[in-house]
């Protein structure tokens, strides 16, 4: 099969064939997913074209069940004999591994036999010449600032993909999703020769709704230039304001600890905390998988389970987990439609959301974090220690940029210690929040 000829119907047929083959090989149940995509990425650097890259991706994954035994296999080769070998490999594994009573397809009544159209498909008819023009416009806007001394370049990417999912319960679903991205990364230098780098990007499934190239370039330059003159900081205990783009990582750690796998591995600091206050009592977390055009919207999850709008944290109280069919069975619960990921998890506060200036006022004297580095997060204990860069704030105003510091604490304390939420939400990914102000953390510096 070649890329040009592959219609959605061809792909459904391909999925159905793999399902049929699995049955012929003795599988009692099976699920098959197939993804294809095509894209173009163009980057420029210092005013010149740097790369043109054409992407063409495809992959088929099969999960075969022999009673309570399971095998998984995947292949990027979609020729008929190769698909047959992949099905064989999955069946072979399923025959030789051990039983697990929790293995199996989703419960039939949870499957999305009917699913909504979510406005996720907006192909961009962008050729490489036009992409170069947009990327140049973006980088030029960043380099218009005289303090921008060097550049990692600007990049424009368009991508158009389709996902088809079927299983032996008769479920067959498909949806198309486009994904477009515009990014810019530049370097600023000061008189002393110190260099700082930062970047910005805009992404959306509808290219008409991305930030324009000039805006992306200007933000990249602003974010970079404001880091010049950074100093270390004396170690202290202080409130910490996480800018929205980095505040998303705090939601990410929460999702990790509230995911089915962490729970059944008993590798989560949230174990046994259901219906307890885990976040500050003003905070609510809701998941919106059906948001039209949303960054991580999906009509069904990676198993075909219908995704649903739901509340995960209600006024600080932990009400739900993130479960697949398997992890749900392990925990004696029902799937939450989170196989394959989180779908637009939004943090909101019942207190009025604050503007950036109001947040700085509320912070008073403390640290603004704009960048986090390293892996110092322990999901089992909730211990938190990461490298950081940002700004020191005195009397509600930025005093100077800081770098080469760490911030440390514990995630349970940080979640309960949120005292303010910013009005401007970062909605570019599956985790969406405004800036978060945490009352007290240990900062280590000189």
């Amino acid at each position, binding site marked *: 099969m070649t890329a040009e000829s592959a219609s959605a119907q061809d792909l459904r047929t391909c999925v159905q064939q793999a399902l049929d083959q699995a049955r012929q090989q003795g599988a009692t149940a099976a699920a098959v997913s197939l993804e294809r995509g095509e894209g173009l990425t163009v980057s420029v650097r210092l005013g*010149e074209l740097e790369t*043109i890259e054409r992407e063409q991706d495809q992959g088929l994954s099969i999960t075969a069940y022999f009673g309570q035994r399971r095998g*998984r296999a*995947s292949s990027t080769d979609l020729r008929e004999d190769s698909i047959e070998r992949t099905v064989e490999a999955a069946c072979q594994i399923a025959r030789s591994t051990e039983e697990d009573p929790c293995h199996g397809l989703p419960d039939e009544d949870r499957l999305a036999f009917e699913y909504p159209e979510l406005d996720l498909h907006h192909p961009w008819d962008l050729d*490489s010449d036009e992409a170069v023009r947009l990327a140049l416009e973006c980088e030029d806007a960043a380099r218009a600032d005289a303090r921008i001394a060097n550049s990692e370049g600007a990049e424009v990417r368009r991508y158009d993909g389709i996902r088809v999912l079927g299983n032996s319960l008769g479920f067959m679903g498909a949806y198309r999703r486009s994904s477009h991205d515009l990014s810019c990364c530049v370097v600023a230098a000061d008189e002393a020769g110190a260099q700082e780098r930062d970047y910005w990007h805009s992404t959306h499934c509808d290219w008409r709704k991305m930030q324009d190239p000039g805006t992306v370039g200007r933000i990249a330059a602003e974010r970079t230039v404001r880091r010049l003159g950074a100093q270390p900081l004396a170690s202290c205990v202080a409130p910490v304001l996480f800018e929205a783009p980095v505040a998303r990582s705090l939601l990410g750690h929460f999702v990790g600890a509230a995911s089915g796998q962490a729970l059944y591995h008993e590798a989560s600091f949230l174990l046994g905390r259901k219906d307890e206050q885990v976040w500050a009592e003003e905070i609510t977390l809701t998941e919106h998988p059906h948001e039209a055009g949303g960054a991580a919207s999906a009509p069904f999850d990676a198993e075909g389970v219908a995704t649903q709008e739901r509340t995960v944290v209600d006024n600080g109280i932990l009400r739900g987990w993130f479960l697949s069919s398997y992890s749900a069975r392990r925990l004696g619960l029902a799937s939450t439609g989170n196989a394959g990921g989180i779908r637009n998890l939004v943090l909101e506060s019942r207190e009025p959301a604050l503007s950036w200036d109001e947040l700085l006022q509320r912070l008073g004297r403390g640290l603004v974090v704009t960048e986090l580095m390293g892996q110092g997060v322990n999901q089992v204990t909730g211990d938190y*220690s990461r490298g950081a860069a940002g700004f020191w704030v005195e009397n509600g105003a930025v005093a100077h940029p800081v770098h080469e510091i760490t911030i440390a604490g514990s995630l349970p304390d940080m979640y309960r210690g949120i005292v303010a939420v910013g009005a401007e939400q970062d909605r570019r990914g599956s985790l969406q929040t405004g800036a978060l102000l945490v009352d007290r953390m240990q900062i*280590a510096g000189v």
Partner: protein
Amino acid sequence: MPDERVTDGAVRRYLLDPGELTPQTLEQTLAHAWSRACDYADVYLQHSQHESLTIENGVVKDAAFTLEQGAGVRAALGEKTGFAYSEELSPDQLLEAARAARSIAHGDRQARLPQSSSTPPPAVCAYDNPLQDLGMEQKIALLREVDETARGLAPEVKKVTATLASAYEVILIASTEGVYQTDIRPLVRLSVSVIAERDGRREIGGHGGGGRYGYSRLLETGAPARFAQEAVRVALLNLESQEAPAGTMTVVLGHGWPGVLLHEAIGHGLEGDAIRKGTSAFTHLMGQRVASPEVTVVDNGTLPDRRGSLCMDDEGTPTQNTVLIEDGIIRGFLYDRLNARLCKTKSTGNGRRESYAHQPMPRMTNTYMQAGAHSPEEILASVDHGLYAVGFNGGQVDITSGKFVFSASEAYLIKNGKIAHPVKGATLVGDGPSVLRRVSMVGDDLELDDGIGTCGKDGQQVPVGVGQPTLRVDELTVGGTQMHDG
């Protein structure tokens, strides 16, 4: 066309025959790219098989097999690169990719392609397929041994998860610089994770390792029991750990895996792409002293069987032992062909790519510091108050500002030259170009890591190795949780 090689059977079986490709098809692909006035073009064919098996709660109930294959075609003109890839290994798709890749160049050219004349570099590992090294029952038995060993060591052990993974990659590289090379790259890994609980407190411990060989090597070296013991030891130790201090202090880094410091603080800043673009904090430091004369750091891709080793990089250049810092002075950068050409130097055999769907760039192989003169005991005894960090989760660097972090998973407080007690994991942060100046003692106990490292750069993951002897660093910022106002 080169002579028959040991890799040829696998290359024909996996890369050429299924799509009816021949060395002539590859030459036509290159000629198609070369017919526009570019400086360089290459084609990269790859077939890879991966498998992983996991034991959890004493039961092996999850396993997966992945087959990936495809071709990437690249053309370069000056600083411009055109790149296209396809999952389909067929003459049509290769020509199509070549057409897309050459779009960065314009003028036509009649000149013939240079003749290919590559001889294969010496192998760094055997070419057996690790997936077929053991039968399924034996793989399951290996995981059982890990599980039973870990559970038998202490009643506090509550959860044991272990994963056995292997890969078998067959590649072919042909370029307009006369390269026609084939390679086979096996890789195995065993990792163990343990959760221990005592008095309501839960802690995690982990260990892992592997290299470019088959599963049977893991059995021969006693890895299942050894890794289980190590994971349990760390988990039990963490049950006793107290809060780590916060602030700047003397840090003693253990030997082996703590060499991730060199990888982050030094290695990435010496990669040729950042050097060429001037975006590395090390750009102007060639020939400059950045450390005491006791410090020598190399990147060596030629070590037998190591996770980070390759006989050739992904552009067909033989790997080598590149001296990065010699007696405290910066002596070398790491190059792929594109950046070497633009910098008017030679590739150091560090052009690596995650797969056919990614473009090569300068990457490390096995990066380590050579041994010095001090015993580890002498180094610990020299510290009045500080941190002794021996286990790490990994690290990250901003090559432009030079700031790096790495996160300890096993550490102790040092008091009066002696280990006082274990402390919780903490992030360490420093400045790459200046951190080695603060290395005041280098141990005589060089060790390489057990083979667990994966390095991420621009979204591409490649296996790497690190190593070092015990080091004393006079001042490093430690991000502990022990609250105190400075």
